[in-house]
Structure formats: C-alpha cells, structure tokens
C-alpha cells in the first residue's frame, strides 16, 4: 500500500470504530428510551405522578427519634432530618471502626498467642457472617435483650475530686454526672453543650497547636540532637489548648440524667442507633483489621531488618519505617471500606432507625410515588459516595509515593 493513502471508509479502522460506538450508544439510548416510555405510560394510566412535587407534601408520619418533627412538615424536611441521622451513623461508624480495626489488625500481628488467636477468631467469624444478621443480633438479642430496664440502668461514672480552689470558671471542668448511662429504652453519653461551630473551632485550634508544637520539637531535635518526643508534646499542647479555650469561652457539657423512665442530657442514642452503630463498627472493623494486617505484612521484610541494623527501637521501627509504608498500601482499601459503611447504613432501616432509606419507605407508605422517591434516595447516596471517594482520593494523592 502506498504510504499516505488511507484505505476506503468501509475498511478504515477508525470509521469502523466510530460506527461501532454509535451503534452501541444507539442501542443503549433505545433501551433507556423504551424503559422511560413504559414508565410514563404506566404512570399515566394509574395516575401516579412522576414529578418531584411529592417533596412538598406533608409527611404524614412522625420521626421517633426526633420529637420536634411534626407530621405536617413536608417530606423534604423529613428527608433532611433523616440525612442528619445517616451522617451521624456514618461518621461515628467510620471513626470507631477505624480505631477498633487498627487495634485488631495490630493484635493479629502480636506474638502473644492469646491475643493473636482471639483477634483471629473474631475477624474470621465476623467477616464470614452477613451484616444484616449481625444487625439483628445486636438489636434483638443484645440491645433489646440484654440491656437493663431504665430503673436498673448500667451507669459508667468516675469519681472526680471537686475543684473548689481558683476562679469559678474552673468548676465547668468538673464532672457533674456519670459518663454514660445505658438501658433498654435509650442510652446517653457525656457530650459538649453549645454550638457545633464553636466545637469545630476548638478542634481546629487544638490540631493547629499540636502541629506547630510538633514542628518546633522536631526542629529542636535536629538542632540539638536530643530526642524530639514530638508526640508527647503535641498531646500536651492539645490538652492545654482545649482546657484554656474551654475555660475562656465558657463552654459546658451535658451529663446524662435518668429522668424517670427516660434518659435526658448528654447525647442520647436510641436502641436502634446503638445497635446499628455497634453492628456497623464490628463488621467494618473486621475488614479494616485484615487490611491493616495485610498492609503491614506487605511492607518488605528488608525494611524492618534495615531498621534493626540501624539500631532503631521497636517503636521507632514501626512509627518511622513500617507504618508510613503500610499506610500508603492500606489507604485505598480502607477508603473502600468507608464507602461500604456509608452504604451499609441503609440497612439500619430494617430495625426502623429513621435514616434516609427508612424515611423514603415511610413516605412511600404514605402515598408518595415510588420511582421519584427512590430516584431522590439514589441521588443522595451517589452524592455521599462521591464526596467520600473524593476525600479518600485526596488523602491518597497526598500519601502516594512521588516517583522520579
């Protein structure tokens, strides 16, 4: 074939490729259009609306965990309330699952036979069992089955000395009540009181202080050669900043109180929330434990041996050599587990925890059209997943090895 002369269109790969794609897209569009058309025809025939106007209709059902919600408020308000519940479940779940999962993963690598085997049995059991089963067991057999009646609640309390000396402000640091109260009707844990924004600012200030102090200690260690102990100093800085801000801003806390048959004060958790949280945390932490274990074992042995050759202590070897490399390997799968946890929160609907899936089911039972309701629900989950993936990808990119 002479150079530069293209084959005729019916033999040219590029034309054929485009024809193929257009055919595929045409088929997909035709199928979607057919489904869409059926939906329209069926909905018109049965007089079911396909618009999103149902969102403005009154809800017609109460939300058990939120007594402030009235039945006459629109469905969209119910959905927002439910979204708040979902986020509460997801965020708490992610934090607790990470902590527990990391501890379990490290326990799986312990040389102590008991600890190792106990963690192994736990992980091998929980990973091979459906989440819905765990959820039902936690709800029926444990939270509703084993928790005591309100008048015999389990109370977790600490005896703290009274702070009588000094300015009156200092008393706000005193524990006026128990740390946690647990019974079959609801549980409550000590929590801060006040606007969320203030709390966030305190956390940010503490984190900033910790980072600055750590940097200073490391700089000082480089200059003088004395141990940095940046972690210790950073922790001290956090405590100091939190205490100072607490006193200066006059923040307070609320302690749980047993008020007859109810629990008030603190942050209250319905039995459904507690069961859902426990089930999600237990399930996800077992997966995270395996990921952590796998990622630490995936770091080449030579790294640990090199650390030993440099006379680094066990802790230093872990902290400076093994864990940073292990975290890089572990972050994408752990991010995936976070996504799974957020999506698995939809199962809490089975035990009637008022999160978005349950609210959608309730509103459909109250005459909202099914397909638009589920469309909105699916969109909310997609946005949640996307947001979580974006955060994880960002963290991933920061940690990724910069290759030359």
């Amino acid at each position, binding site marked *: 074939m002479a150079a530069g002369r293209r084959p005729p269109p019916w033999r040219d790969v590029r034309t054929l490729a485009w024809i193929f794609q257009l055919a595929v897209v045409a088929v997909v569009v035709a199928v979607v259009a057919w489904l869409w058309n059926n939906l329209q025809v069926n909905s018109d025939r049965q007089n079911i609306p396909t618009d999103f106007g149902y969102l403005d209709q009154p809800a017609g059902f109460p939300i058990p965990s939120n007594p402030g919600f009235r039945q006459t408020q629109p469905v969209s308000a119910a959905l927002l309330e439910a979204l708040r519940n979902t986020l509460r479940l997801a965020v708490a779940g992610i934090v607790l699952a990470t902590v527990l999962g990391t501890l379990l993963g490290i326990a799986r690598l312990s040389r102590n036979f008991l600890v190792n085997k106990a963690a192994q049995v736990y992980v091998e059991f929980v990973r091979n069992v459906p989440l819905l089963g765990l959820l*039902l067991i936690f709800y029926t057999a444990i939270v509703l089955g084993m928790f005591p009646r309100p008048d015999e609640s389990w109370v977790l309390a600490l005896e703290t000395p009274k702070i009588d000396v000094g300015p009156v402000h200092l008393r706000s640091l005193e524990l006026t009540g128990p740390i946690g109260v647990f019974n079959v009707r609801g549980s409550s844990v000590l929590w801060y009181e006040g606007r969320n924004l203030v709390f966030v600012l305190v956390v940010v200030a503490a984190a900033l202080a910790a980072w600055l102090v750590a940097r200073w200690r490391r700089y000082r260690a480089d200059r003088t050669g004395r141990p940095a102990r940046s972690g210790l100093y950073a922790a001290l800085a956090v405590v100091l900043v939190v205490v100072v801000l607490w006193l200066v801003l006059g923040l307070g806390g609320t302690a749980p109180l047993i008020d007859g048959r109810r629990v008030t004060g603190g942050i209250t958790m319905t039995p459904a929330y507690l069961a859902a949280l426990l089930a999600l945390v237990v399930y996800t932490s077992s997966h995270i434990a395996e990921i952590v274990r796998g990622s630490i074992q995936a770091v080449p042995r030579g790294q640990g041996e090199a650390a030993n050759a440099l006379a680094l202590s066990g802790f230093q070897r872990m902290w400076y050599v093994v864990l940073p490399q292990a975290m890089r390997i572990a972050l994408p799968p752990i991010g995936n587990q976070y996504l799974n946890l957020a999506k698995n929160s939809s199962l809490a609907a089975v035990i009637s925890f008022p999160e978005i899936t349950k609210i959608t089911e309730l509103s459909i039972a109250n005459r909202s059209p099914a397909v638009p309701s589920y469309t909105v629900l699916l969109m909310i989950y997609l946005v949640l997943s996307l947001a979580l993936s974006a955060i994880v990808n960002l963290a991933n990119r920061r940690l990724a090895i910069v290759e030359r």
Partner: protein
Amino acid sequence: MSDVLLDPTIIVPPEPPRPAATGPGDWLRRNLFRSVGDTIVTLLAAPLIGYVFYRLGRFVFASGRWDIVEDNLALFMVGRYPRDELWRVGVALGAIAAYGGLLAGHVHRRQVEAGRAGPAVPMARRVGDLVVRMWPLLLGVAVLLALTSTPGPSLVTLAALAAALIGRLLGALLGRRWLLPIVVAGIVVPIALVWLLTRPAGWDDWGGVMLNLFLAAAGIGLSFPLGVVLALGRRAGGRTDSFVGGVIVAVLLAGPVVVVLVRRRFDVESVVSWALPLLAAGLAIAGYRTGRRSTLPLVRIVSVAYIEFFRGVPLYVLLGLGYLGLRRFLPSSAEPPGLVVRATVVFTLFTAAYIAEIVRGGLQSLPRGQTEAGQALGLTAVRVTGFIVLPQALRNVIPAIVGQFISLFKDTTLAGAAIGFLELLNVADAVTAQEQFRAQGLFAEALTFVMFLFWVGCITMSRESQRLERKLGVGTR
C-alpha cells in the same frame, strides 16, 4: 567490656547453642509470657476470653432452647418448598456433588499429566488432610444432621457423598479432550436442575438456604458476561482515565440535583429538558478528553457511567426499587415479573458492576506485551481479546471473583428484608413469630443457627479461595 570488642587478641569462646525449646513450658514461655508486658496482657485476656467461651458454651449446650430450630429445620433449609417434592432437592444435591467430584477428578488428572501434581500420598493421609481442610463444612453438616429427626437427610447426605466419590473416580478417567463437554455440562446441568426444581410450583415457594444459594449463583452467573463486557468497554481503545469517571458521574448528578433542589415542582419532562443540554455538554467534555487518547470514547463513557452508578448505591435501596418499581418499567401488557425474577435482575445488574471492576483489575495486570504480541501475529482485536487477554486476566482474578460470590451470598439476606422472601435470615424472623414460640425471646437461638450456617458456607468458600490463590501463585509472580 569494650576491651572484649576492640582487642583482637582476646578470643571469646562461642557459647554452646541453647537447647531447642520442646516442652509445653517452653511454648508457654515463648508465646504467652515473653516479657513483663506480655504477661500482664495474658493475665488480663485469659479470664476475659474464658468468660466469653463459658457464656457461649452455656448458651449453646445448656440454656438455649433449640427446639425452635429442630421443629422448623425444613423451613430453614428449603422454605415452603412442597414437602412431597423434596426428592428433587435431593437429586439436585446429588447432581451437584457428582459434578463437583467430576471437576476435581478431571483437574487432578490434568495436573498429573502436566507433571504439576505432588508426590503420591497414601489414601488415608489424603482423607485426613481433606477432613482437616474442610472442618467447618463437616461441623456444619454434623450439626444439621444432629438437629434432624428423620433418617431422610442423613441418607441424602450419604448419597451425595457417594455421588461425589463416583464423580471423582470418573473424572480421573477423563482426559484433555473432555474439557469442552465438562464446561458445557457446567452450564447445562444447572439449567436442567433449575427446571427440575421449578416443575411443581415455580419459584415463589423457594426459601431457606436453597433460595440464598440460588440467588447468589444466578446473580454471579448471569452478571458475568455483562461484567466482562463492561470491563472491556471501560478499557476500550486506550488507557483508563479516572478523570473521566469523575466528570461523568458529576455531570450525571449535578444536572438533576440542581434541578430538583431549585425547581422541585418541575415534572420529569422539564427535568429532562434542562438536564439533557447539561449532560450533552458534560459528555462532550469527557469525550474530548478521552477522544484524544482512545478510539471508542462513547463506549467507555457508557461503561463508566454504569459502573460508577451501581457501585455508589446500596444494594438494599436497589432491591427496594426493583421490588416496587420494576413493573413500571415494563409494558403493562406484559405479565408482572415474579419476586424471584425481580431480585435476580437487581442482583445481576449490581454484581455486574463489581465484576467489571474486578475484571478490569485483571486486564490491567496483564503486560501490554501480550496484546502487542497478538497484534504482531496479525490477530484481529476480537481474537486478541478472546484468545490471549481474557483467559489470562480471568485466571488471575478467580480468587477475587470467589470473594465477590461470598459477598453476594451474604447480601442475599437483603432480599429477604427488602422484598419479603423467606430466605434464611427471614425464616429466623418468621419462626419466632410462630404461635408456640412467640414472645419468648428465642430470637437468639434462631439467629445463632442462621449465622452459624452462613459462617460455615462463607468460611469454607473463603478458605478454598485462599488455597486456590496460593496454588495459582497469584501475587507472587
């Protein structure tokens, strides 16, 4: 001390080697009491673990009321399947056992022919190894048989064992040229069994473990072709670009979300008329980005949109949508699909997205040289994919696919909660509502039994998959 290290004239005699640790005292010292911290941990953990085991043992053997499980065992196993047709289930079990044995025998013979089999091991030792390897499954079968009151299930188990043995012996006789018939049988036999089992009353009476297994197997089997197609589509004509995925999903979401938030009263035609131009613009951007590096951007966009959608959404919600809404998407003249069909459709569509990602991982793990070698030999793109790329990629991801099957098996419990099937977990719900067992807090027994069955199934599959992974050498080559 430093003299010893620095002065070469001082010779320190080597220490005699420490005697090898053999006795139990040494084992205890090494594993439980290695250091002070270790000892403290052991002393704290041992009573706690002992207490947990004590409570569990007491529940299982003494205080638990297991008659709720014994009386309803058939319900747990096959749901409301007509009791006089249970012989079909027995036949199905025997057929599956026989086919499994056949496959095992054939694989063993291929290994022997290829010289990959290990040294010949005496039969007793092999049986012993098999028992050790399959102890959860054997425990599960033993527990089930202990709970039965009739001899029927024990006979069926023995028959299935015999069928497996016969299959194994037969399979060892079949050589290489029997591969195609065996694969074809692997597709034909399940279809025939499904036909056999649905003869009396169709699908809607199925329940128990049988339903879970069927939904999982149907889901994986049917989703496989779609998943492979999606994976190939996602990689169509060039290297992958995660930016494309992000743009597509963002555009697909942004349009409707903005419209819904801002103009809720709009009906769907108006939403579409707003969203379509936005969508077209977004696709144009994504297409331009990918078009520069690929020859099939539209196919890739469609695949990515499908995969990212189904991976971002919980299965429970999709099942609810399938249950309530599937009928609306079909012409009203068609018969409304049965519950099992709806569930299978949702499981298939959902699993296809995950299989697509797994297969994509497998495709990416192949060196590009394989495709280039195929092209150098003059094979068309279809043949390169079918004969060179796919066999290697699929072989590499078999463990991941088994993992997905295990996940799907556990997720079939969602069908019971969302659609109301009498699958295994739902049966536990149903039996505690029966008259003689109501309101006695027997949920714990029923749920423990169900969880035990799931655990047996999943851990057996998981361990076999790990073993297969080790034998295939995935990740080490």
